[in-house]
């Protein structure tokens, strides 16, 4: 059970939700402390979007309790709504308006006074590099521009809590970097952020805490570093000049796995410098020359496969699929 922080940030306890007889969320508990970033990581169909829709007052949970910035989502939805900003997976922009008009619409609906509204609109256009396109209709916007506008619209009233549902899905690498930059800046300014992603490196880069969701359950949680420590996936790869050297090395180190084609020996490794020195000393004493050495530390990929049982589930429980499929 996660500890309950003060009446700020996001706290969800034992959230359950079924659609028909399909259990989408099974007692999910999350806590995001104020000013931190939590990444909800999981494959398609894990329940990430449903969780965001429940926390952002769009869908009612079947059971469980949820508080956003101190407001109960069920009994005081408008209180929660006033504190949050949501950027969903599907672009929530008005296609028949210009970029500036979209932002102005948000300023008006947030009841900013005329002057403050205008100032905020031009600030955001500037911040999101949309000033040149401000008075163009959205039909002329690229995917990256729409996503930036979408996020800018979320930020008009400077919400204290932000939900980002797969904020970079479908973006080109450059737009993705820009989006990451923006999210980091927001986090730096003390905003509480819950983001969902199916990209492991995204969670690694942006999140203070990661919760791995699979089939509607939280199967692992912790900081990215803690999660990586939990699995022993690290190894050293030794590259040799010829097959004879590889064979001798493999005889010397029985725990290793040789790759005859690439002339590589993969040796399990606990992450300490001492173990590398010992390994190299042993090979040196046996007069086996190592051409090159690379170190592989476990990343969230390894964590992900380890905690989800080594498979990425497809949309509707189609059972195990080959490793890496669907990503």
């Amino acid at each position: 059970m996660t500890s309950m922080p003060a009446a700020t940030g996001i706290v969800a306890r034992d959230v359950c939700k079924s659609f028909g007889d399909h259990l989408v969320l099974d007692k999910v508990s999350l806590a995001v402390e104020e000013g931190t970033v939590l990444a909800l990581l999981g494959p398609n169909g894990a329940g990430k979007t449903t969780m965001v829709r429940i926390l952002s007052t769009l869908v009612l949970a079947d059971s469980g309790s949820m508080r956003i910035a101190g407001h109960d989502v069920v009994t005081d939805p408008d209180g929660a709504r006033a504190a949050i900003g949501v950027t969903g997976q599907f672009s929530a922009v008005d296609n028949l308006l210009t970029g500036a008009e979209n932002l102005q619409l948000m300023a008006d609906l947030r009841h900013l006074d005329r002057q403050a509204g205008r100032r905020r609109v031009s600030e955001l256009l500037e911040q999101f590099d949309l000033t040149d396109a401000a008075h163009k209709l959205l039909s002329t916007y690229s995917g990256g521009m729409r996503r930036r506008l979408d996020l800018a619209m979320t930020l008009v009233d400077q919400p204290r809590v932000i939900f980002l549902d797969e904020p970079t899905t479908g973006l080109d690498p450059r737009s993705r970097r820009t989006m990451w930059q923006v999210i980091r800046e927001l986090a730096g300014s003390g905003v509480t952020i819950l983001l969902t992603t199916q990209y492991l490196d995204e969670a690694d880069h942006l999140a203070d805490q990661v919760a791995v969701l699979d089939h509607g359950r939280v199967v692992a949680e912790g900081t990215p570093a803690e999660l990586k420590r939990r699995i022993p996936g690290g190894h050293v790869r030794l590259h040799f000049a010829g097959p004879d050297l590889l064979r001798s090395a493999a005889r010397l180190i029985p725990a290793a796995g040789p790759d005859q084609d690439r002339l590589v020996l993969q040796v399990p490794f606990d992450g300490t410098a001492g173990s590398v020195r010992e390994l190299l000393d042993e090979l040196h004493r046996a007069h086996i020359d190592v051409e090159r050495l690379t170190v592989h530390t476990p990343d969230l990929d390894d964590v992900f496969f380890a905690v989800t049982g080594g498979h990425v589930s497809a949309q509707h429980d189609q059972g195990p699929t080959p490793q890496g499929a669907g990503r």
Partner: protein
Amino acid sequence: MTTLAYALSDSRVMLRRNLKHQLRYPSMTVMLIGMPIVLLLLFVYVFGGQLGAGLGAHLGRHAYLDYVVPGVLLITVASVVQGTSIMVAMDMTGGIIDRFRTMAIARASVLIGHVLGSLVQALAAMGVLIGVAFGLGFRSSAGVLEWLAAIGALALFGLALIWLAVALGLAAKSVETASNTPMVLLLLLFLSSGFVSTATMPTGLRQFAEYQPFTPVADTLRGLLSGAAIGDHAIAAIAWSIGIAAVAYFWAICLYNTRRAVEQR
């Protein structure tokens, strides 16, 4: 600001959004306003000679023009509400509605924006149509009071059909469906006293025509604009308008509160 002040402010913002949409989607606006004009020309110049003769001896095209204007005004209403239904469905199938739902705004303001926007559009379209009708030689015996009463009756009936169209737009699974269902209204209008007297219809059809909403509204308008007897048609027209508006309003609010924009995952 009070809750009511916020609700008014939100509705005004949504109305402005809706009016901007009409300007940004001119092809639809022109189509919705233009179609009744084309039909007016068709009725007067293609059918008018013969249908006018049916109104009485020595009467012709001009008499039929005077007769058919109320019917074409109702075509205008039916045409505009088709646009309402499309616009509502476009909103509901897009992502923006989810954004509105996660904001602390008056929940009905989205729908009220559509309703008021459509009402403005309907009144403008009817203004254009009356202008064209006068250009073609339409003459009315109505004074200021009768004109105001006619505009009031059209606005009230228009409001009823607009709420109905909002509900149809909310109920539609796609924009295509939303664009097709209001066609039923047009069919209903043709089976009324909008274009020919119900007395000329075969018995079963006549009975249907006499007891459906378009007939009392068309007869009330005709009475106000040309001085024909109105009788209890006015009461029936008002009753139908209020009845349809009330049912459609509650249906729409119910649909709006339960329907989700994007299918659940």
